[in-house]
């Protein structure tokens, strides 16, 4: 398994389809990161084989949020128009420095979007799984929790204990039995990973 360094010529542009880890310059494909070269045969005929360079480093480089990637973050602030999140994990990759994302009140839920009271959906300190819907403005990405498996995955009650979701909009504190409403995510079966 030969290790290639950036800038090494891998092949002609015409022969392969350059996927991640490679770059097409002029009519050649070059490696763009350090790693091992693998070419995978294309299943449908007529398509070019794909060539990619897989990094050898155990942990992938810290990824950054892209449109439609599933991120997990902690709620920082809540005001009537939006909830501000600090994005800590992209897919299942923790990122080195937290990015900032906001969930606008109209992106919280697909149904009855105008009657949403945001403090019945999120509270500061909750851990929320959301989907990136756009690169947003200069400071934060725009996120949405309009799908069933998106929303609050972990929240602590006023008494300080981890709460258990009992419906898609209510959670109960095991100790004080107090019910607080949140926009909960449908618990995902342990095995199946939720990343697309």
């Amino acid at each position, binding site marked *: 398994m030969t290790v290639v360094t950036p800038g090494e010529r891998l092949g002609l542009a015409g022969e392969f389809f350059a996927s991640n880890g490679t770059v097409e310059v002029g009519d050649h494909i070059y490696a763009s990161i350090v790693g091992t070269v693998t070419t995978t045969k294309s299943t449908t005929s007529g398509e070019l084989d794909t060539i990619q360079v897989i990094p050898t480093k155990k942990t992938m480089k810290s990824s950054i949020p892209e449109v439609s990637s599933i991120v997990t973050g*902690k*709620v*920082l*602030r809540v005001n009537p128009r939006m909830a501000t999140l600090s994005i800590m994990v992209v897919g299942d990759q923790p990122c080195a420095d937290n990015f900032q994302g906001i969930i606008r009140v109209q992106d919280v839920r697909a149904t009855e979007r105008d009657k949403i009271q945001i403090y019945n959906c999120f509270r*500061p*300190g909750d851990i929320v799984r959301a989907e990136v819907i756009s690169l947003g403005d200069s400071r934060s990405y725009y996120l949405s929790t309009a799908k069933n498996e998106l929303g609050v995955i972990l929240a602590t009650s006023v008494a300080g204990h981890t709460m258990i979701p009992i419906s898609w909009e209510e959670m109960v504190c095991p100790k004080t039995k107090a019910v607080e409403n949140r926009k909960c995510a449908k618990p995902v079966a342990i095995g199946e990973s939720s990343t697309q």
Partner: protein
Amino acid sequence: MRSNGRTDEHQLRPLSASFGVLSRADGSSRFGFGTTEVLASVFGPKEVRIRDEKIDSATLQISVRPLNGLSGPLHRLAERQLRDLIEAAVLASIHPRSAIQVTIQVTGDDGCFMSAAVNAASLALLDAGVAQRHLLASVTLAFDPNGTLLLDPSLKELETAKSVHTFTFSNSNDAVIAGVSSEGVYSQDEYKQACTVAQQACATIHSFYRKTMEQKLAPQ
């Protein structure tokens, strides 16, 4: 015979404390060991910059300002030690995403301004009505060149001291050292001796707090 008329090594200089000294601050107090006097003010819970905001508790903003000259690393370390003490004393989780600003101004320095600052800060928080677990009382001790332990040393005594120790105890549990910072060269038993003397001295300061508070509130 020690400076300013004190005979015994383990004698504190006359304590002075007053509340509500400043009109704009939410809480203020002045504490003094003899001529060493420190003015402390508390604002809060007030608005905080997004950068310093914490989601589960109030942000403590401490500022120590010397009487003369530029403030340097010495005052930054004093601020950090004060923050460790006050963070343990104040119930900051009641006011998340806000700031409690404590400012210390030295108005007279004849040795142990750090202890006076801790006491003044604790009283100022009391005056501001900030919820606290316990009050803090701090005292400074020094070993002079021939090994005798001096309580609440003056500036002259500090200049020739072999080692200087600052102890802080809370009024709820005196088995726990709320804060200690000592420098110079000393043995472990010297440290132990200083610790026990400090415990009693802090107890007297705590009773002094109670007496001052009773005078302030009782007449009404």
